[in-house]
C-alpha cells in the first residue's frame, strides 16, 4: 500500500511538473520518465489518465496543450491508455478542439489556436492508425470533419496525392521518350545522310586548305635557325605557339571563300548536328523498351557518329575555325560592355560594309562608358580610316538602349506585319500600312532615367560642451546648433563676417530677454516633470501591490481546485506565477481609455448630463 501510494505520487507529480511550464514544448526528460513509469504498471496508467483528464479541464490553454502532448505520446504507445481515453473522447475533444459553443478554449488565445490545430492533427493521426479498432475515434473524426467541417491537415491523403502526381509525371516523360524514340527510328537514315554530307563537305574544305598549305611549306626552315637562342621556357613556349600558328593555314584573300564556307559548315556542325546527335543519344539511353536490340545498335551507331563528328570538329579547330573563334574572343575581351554579337558576326561575314552601317558601328563602338575601353579599341584598330577615328574621338558616350537598334536607319516599317493577329479585328485592315521613318525616330527617342546626384550631407560640426564636434548630418539646419555652415576643426564657423550681421540684427536686450525666457521655461518643465514622475511612481507602486494580490489570489484558487496541489513545491509556485502571467491580458491603450471612460465618475457625469437634458426637455417640450 505504502509502495503503491509512492509510485502514484511519482506519476502524478511528474505530469504536474511537465505541464507546469510556459515553454512551448515538453521537457523530453520528464516525458521519458513519465513513459517509463507508466509502462511498468497499469494502475499508474489509470492514475495518469485520471490526472491528465483533470488537467485538460484547467482553465489555461498552455496546461491543456502540454497535457494533450503527453496524451498523444501515451496514446500512440499504450493499448490500455487508448481504451481508457477513447471512452471519454468527446470530452477530450471538447476540451482540446473547443467545438462546443458553450465551452470555448481558455486564454491565452494564441496558445488556444495552437492547441486546436494540434488536437485536430492528433485526432487525424489516431484515426488513421487506430481508427479501425475504435469506433469512437472514427465517430469523432467523422463528426469534426463532416458535420463541423473542420479542416484536417490530411497528411496521408496529401502524401498519396504527391506520389500519384510523381508517378503520372514519370509516365508522361516515358511516353514522350517513346515518341521521340519512334521518331528517331524513322529519321535515323536521314540524319545519317545529313551528317555524312556535312562531314564530306568539311573534309573537302580541309583538303583544299591543306593542299594550299603545302605551298607555304618553304617558309618554315627560316624559323628553325633561331630555335636554339631561346633558353627561357616561357619564351620557348610562346615561340612554339607562334610556330604552330604559323603552321596553320593563314586566312588570306585567296582562300577566304573556303574559310568562310568552312566556318559556316563548322558552325552548322557544332550548333546543329552535334547537339542533335547528343540529344538522340540521351533519348536512346533513357528510353525503356521491351526489346533492346534495335536500340543498342542505334545507340552504337550514334556514338560512332558523335565520335566522328568530334574528330571533324577537332580537325576544323586545328585548321582554322579556331582562329576565327579566337578572334572573336579577343574582340570580346576588348569590347567590355558587351558589343552586340550580331554586329560582330555581320562584321566578319561582310568586312566591307556600306558607309552608313559603318557609322552606326562607330556609334555602337562608343557605347562603353569608360574611356579606357574606347581607347583600347582605338589602339587595336589603328588602321581605321582617319575620318572615322576622328569622329570616334568626339563621339558622345551613350548608354545602351533599344533606340540604338535602328540608329540612323531611314527605313519605314510595315505596321501590320509584326506578328499581330489583325484578321479577327473589326474594320478594314491595311496590310501594307507603313510607319514612316520619322515616326519611328519619334518613337525611338532615347529614354533616360533620372539619377539623383550623389551628394554627401555635411556634418554639423558645432562644438559640443563635453568636447568633440556635433556629428549630426542635416541638410540645412541642425536642430541643436542652427544652420549648418562651414567650420574649421575647432568648430568655429569659418566665415564669421557673414554670420555676424545676422546676430547683430537682434538688439542686446532682446537677446537677454530671450535668454531669461528660455531659462524660465526650462525650469517650469523640470518642475512639471518632477511632479509627473512622483505620480507615476505612486501609481506603479499601487499597480505592483494590486498585481501581487491578484497573483496570490489566483494561486490560491488554482491550488484549491487542482487535485495535486500537495505536490507543488516552491519552484512550482513560481512556475504558476508565470502561467498566471500568461493569462493576464496586456493593458493596451484602448483598455486604459476604457477604464477612464467607463469609470464611475465618468458615468456619473454622463448621467448628470443626461439628467440635465431631460430636465431641459421637460421644461421646454416644444424645443428640440
Amino acid at each position, binding site marked *: 500500500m505504502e509502495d503503491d501510494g509512492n509510485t502514484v505520487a511519482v506519476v502524478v507529480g511528474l505530469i504536474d511538473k511537465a505541464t507546469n511550464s510556459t515553454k512551448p514544448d515538453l521537457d523530453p526528460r520528464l516525458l*521519458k520518465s513519465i*513513459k*517509463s513509469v507508466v*509502462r511498468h504498471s497499469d494502475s499508474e496508467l489509470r492514475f495518469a489518465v485520471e490526472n491528465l483528464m483533470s488537467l485538460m479541464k484547467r482553465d489555461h490553454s498552455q496546461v491543456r496543450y502540454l497535457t494533450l502532448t503527453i496524451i498523444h505520446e501515451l496514446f*500512440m*504507445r*499504450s*493499448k*490500455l491508455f*487508448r481504451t481508457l481515453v477513447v*471512452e*471519454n473522447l*468527446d470530452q477530450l475533444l471538447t476540451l482540446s478542439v473547443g467545438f462546443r459553443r458553450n465551452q470555448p478554449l481558455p486564454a491565452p488565445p494564441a496558445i488556444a489556436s495552437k492547441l486546436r490545430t494540434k488536437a485536430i492533427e492528433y485526432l487525424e493521426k489516431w484515426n488513421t*492508425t*487506430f481508427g*479501425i*479498432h*475504435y*469506433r*469512437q475515434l*472514427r*465517430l*469523432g473524426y*467523422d*463528426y469534426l470533419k463532416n*458535420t463541423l467541417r473542420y479542416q484536417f491537415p490530411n497528411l496521408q491523403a496529401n502524401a498519396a496525392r504527391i506520389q500519384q502526381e510523381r508517378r503520372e509525371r514519370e509516365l508522361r516523360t516515358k511516353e514522350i521518350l517513346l515518341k521521340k524514340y519512334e521518331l528517331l527510328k524513322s529519321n535515323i537514315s536521314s540524319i545519317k545522310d545529313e551528317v555524312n554530307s556535312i562531314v564530306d563537305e568539311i573534309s573537302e574544305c580541309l583538303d583544299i586548305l591543306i593542299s594550299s598549305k603545302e605551298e607555304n611549306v618553304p617558309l618554315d626552315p627560316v624559323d628553325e635557325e633561331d630555335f636554339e637562342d631561346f633558353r627561357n621556357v616561357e619564351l620557348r613556349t610562346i615561340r612554339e605557339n607562334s610556330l604552330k600558328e604559323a603552321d596553320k593555314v593563314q586566312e588570306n584573300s585567296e582562300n577566304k571563300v573556303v574559310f568562310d564556307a568552312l566556318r559556316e559548315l563548322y558552325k552548322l556542325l557544332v550548333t546543329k548536328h552535334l547537339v542533335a546527335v547528343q540529344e538522340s543519344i540521351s533519348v536512346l539511353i533513357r528510353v525503356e523498351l521491351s526489346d533492346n536490340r534495335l536500340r543498342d545498335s542505334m545507340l552504337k551507331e550514334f556514338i560512332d557518329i558523335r565520335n566522328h563528328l568530334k574528330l571533324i570538329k577537332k580537325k576544323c579547330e586545328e585548321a582554322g575555325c579556331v582562329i576565327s573563334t579566337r578572334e572573336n574572343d579577343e574582340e570580346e575581351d576588348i569590347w567590355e560592355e558587351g558589343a552586340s554579337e550580331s554586329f560582330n558576326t555581320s562584321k566578319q561575314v561582310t568586312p566591307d560594309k556600306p558607309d552608313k552601317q559603318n557609322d552606326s558601328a562607330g556609334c555602337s563602338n562608343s557605347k562603353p562608358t569608360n574611356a579606357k575601353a574606347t581607347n583600347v579599341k582605338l589602339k587595336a584598330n589603328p588602321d581605321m580610316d582617319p575620318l572615322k577615328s576622328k569622329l570616334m574621338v568626339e563621339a558622345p558616350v551613350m548608354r545602351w538602349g533599344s533606340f540604338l537598334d535602328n540608329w540612323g536607319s531611314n527605313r519605314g516599317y510595315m505596321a501590320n506585319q509584326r506578328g499581330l493577329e489583325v484578321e479577327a479585328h473589326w474594320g478594314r485592315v491595311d496590310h501594307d500600312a507603313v510607319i514612316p521613318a520619322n515616326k519611328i525616330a519619334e518613337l525611338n527617342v532615347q529614354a533616360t532615367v533620372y539619377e539623383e546626384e550623389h551628394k554627401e550631407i555635411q556634418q554639423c560640426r558645432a562644438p559640443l560642451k563635453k568636447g568633440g564636434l556635433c556629428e549630426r548630418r542635416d541638410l540645412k539646419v541642425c536642430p541643436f546648433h542652427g544652420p549648418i555652415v562651414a567650420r574649421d576643426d575647432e568648430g568655429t564657423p569659418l566665415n564669421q563676417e557673414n554670420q555676424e550681421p545676422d546676430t547683430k540684427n537682434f538688439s542686446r536686450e532682446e537677446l537677454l530677454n530671450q535668454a531669461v525666457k528660455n531659462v524660465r521655461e526650462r525650469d517650469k518643465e523640470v518642475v512639471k516633470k518632477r511632479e509627473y514622475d512622483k505620480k507615476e511612481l505612486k501609481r506603479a507602486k499601487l499597480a505592483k501591490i494590486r498585481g501581487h494580490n491578484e497573483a496570490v489570489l489566483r494561486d490560491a484558487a488554482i491550488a484549491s481546485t487542482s487535485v495535486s496541489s500537495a505536490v507543488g513545491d516552491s519552484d512550482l509556485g513560481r512556475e504558476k506565477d508565470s502561467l498566471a502571467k500568461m493569462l493576464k491580458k496586456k493593458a493596451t491603450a484602448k483598455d486604459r481609455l476604457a477604464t477612464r471612460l467607463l469609470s464611475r465618475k465618468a458615468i456619473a457625469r454622463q448621467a448628470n448630463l443626461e439628467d440635465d437634458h431631460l430636465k431641459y426637455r421637460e421644461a421646454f417640450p416644444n424645443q428640440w
Partner: protein
Amino acid sequence: MWKKIGDRESGKLRPNSFITRIRSNRASSLHLSNHKELVSSHRGSVNSLQVDLTEGRYLLSGAADASLAIYDIQRATDYEAGGLIAKHKPILVDKQHQNAHKYAISTAIWYPIDTGLFVTGSYDHHIKVWDTNTTQVVMDFKMPGKVYRTAMSSLATSHMLIAAATEDVQVRLCDMASGAFAHTLSGHRDGVMAVEWSTSSEWILMTGGCDGAIRFWDIRRAGCFSVLDQSHSQLGRRPPLADKSTTKVSTSKARAPPRKVGSGSSSKHSGNSKIIKQTKGSAKQRLHPGLLTSQDRATAHYGAVLGLKATEDGMYLLSAGSDSRLRLWDIQSGCNTLVHYEIVRLQSSKAIQLDVSQDSGVVFLPCMTSIKAFDMWSGKSKMTLQGHYENVNCCCYSSHDQELYTGGNDRQILIWSPLKQIPADVDECDRSTGQPLAADEDNWSD
C-alpha cells in the same frame, strides 16, 4: 455464461429463464459496437427509429431533412478493414421524392403486421402511409398542425388506426382502411407530444401533452377515462413477475382511495365495464362520465410530457417530461410508483423516444448527448452510453439481437451491442489493399 449453459444442459434451468437471463445479461453490457455500423445517409438530425415488429430486421429512420431510410440490420452490405467492420448501408433512401415530406420527419413507424407499409409524420402537417416495395405514398392525411408522434397498436385485430399527436389539442385517429379521421379525442389543453397504445388492450390509447397531463382514452367512447396525477402515488410497486402481481394488486387496491377509477380491476375489460357502470352518475358532458373535474386538472409532469413507453406486459407506463423526470406509472391503479431515476437533464424542446428492454428490466433514455440505462425498478443508473456528439433524440432497443440503436442531432445512427464473446477470426490483412493492418498493441519505443 458457461455455467448457465451447463445448468441448462443438466436441466436445472428452465428454457425461458435461461433465455431471459442471457438476454438481460447482454442487455446490461452494451457498448458502442466497433464491428457493426450504420452508414447514415441523413443530412439532418435523426428524429425517429424503429425496428420492424415482425422480423426484427429492418430499421426505419426518419430525419429532420425530410429524408427517411431503411437499414437491413441483419445483413451487412459491405465490409471494411478485412471484415472487421460490417457496414450497413441504407437499402432504401427517400430524398427528393415527389410526394415526400417538405419539412422534418418527426416520426416514422412500421405497420405492425408486416413490413409492407410504414407511416411517417412530419412537421409539414401531413401523415403519410408508404408502400415499402414501391416507395410510393399510398395515403395522405392532412393534420391541423405539426405532427409530433404517431402510433399504431401492435395488438389491434379489429382496427387499423394511426393515433397522431400533433400541435393541436385534439388527438386524431386516422383510419387507414377508409382514409379518413375515425375519431377526434379532445381533452388536452395544449399540443400533444407523445402517444402510445396500450400493450394489453387494443382499445386503450395513452397520450401525453405539453400541458403535462397523461390521459388514457378508450377509443370506443368519447372523452378520456383517466388522467394520471403525479401526486397520486403508490408506495411500493408490484413486482414484475406475473404470479406475484395479484397480491400486489390487492395491496394497491387497499391503499387506493375508493373513488379511483381503474383500481382493483384485474383486467382492462372488467375495468372498462366498471367505468361504464359508473357513467350514470356523471353530469358533465365533455368529461368522461367516470371522471371528476378535479382529476381532469391533474398533471403527470411539471412541463410537457416528452415521451411515453408502455412495458411489454402492459402493466406499467414510463413517461419522460421536460421537468427532467422519468416516472413509472402503474397503469391499472393510475398511480405514480415514486421510483426515482437518476437523471441530470433531459432536452426539453423535442419529443424523445425512449425504450424498454423486453423483460422490462432496463430503460433506455436519451439524456442530452448520452443515453442512460436505468434499472426500471430501482431507478439506479446502470450505464451511461456516450458516443453522440450532439443531443440524442431517439433510441430503439431490438430485443431480438439485444442491440440498441440511437439517433441524434449529429446525424449519426449508432449501434450499441453487447461485447462479442469470441472475436471473429479475421485475418489481420486488408483484403482490398493487401496491407497489414496496424495492430492494436502496445508500442513502447523506450
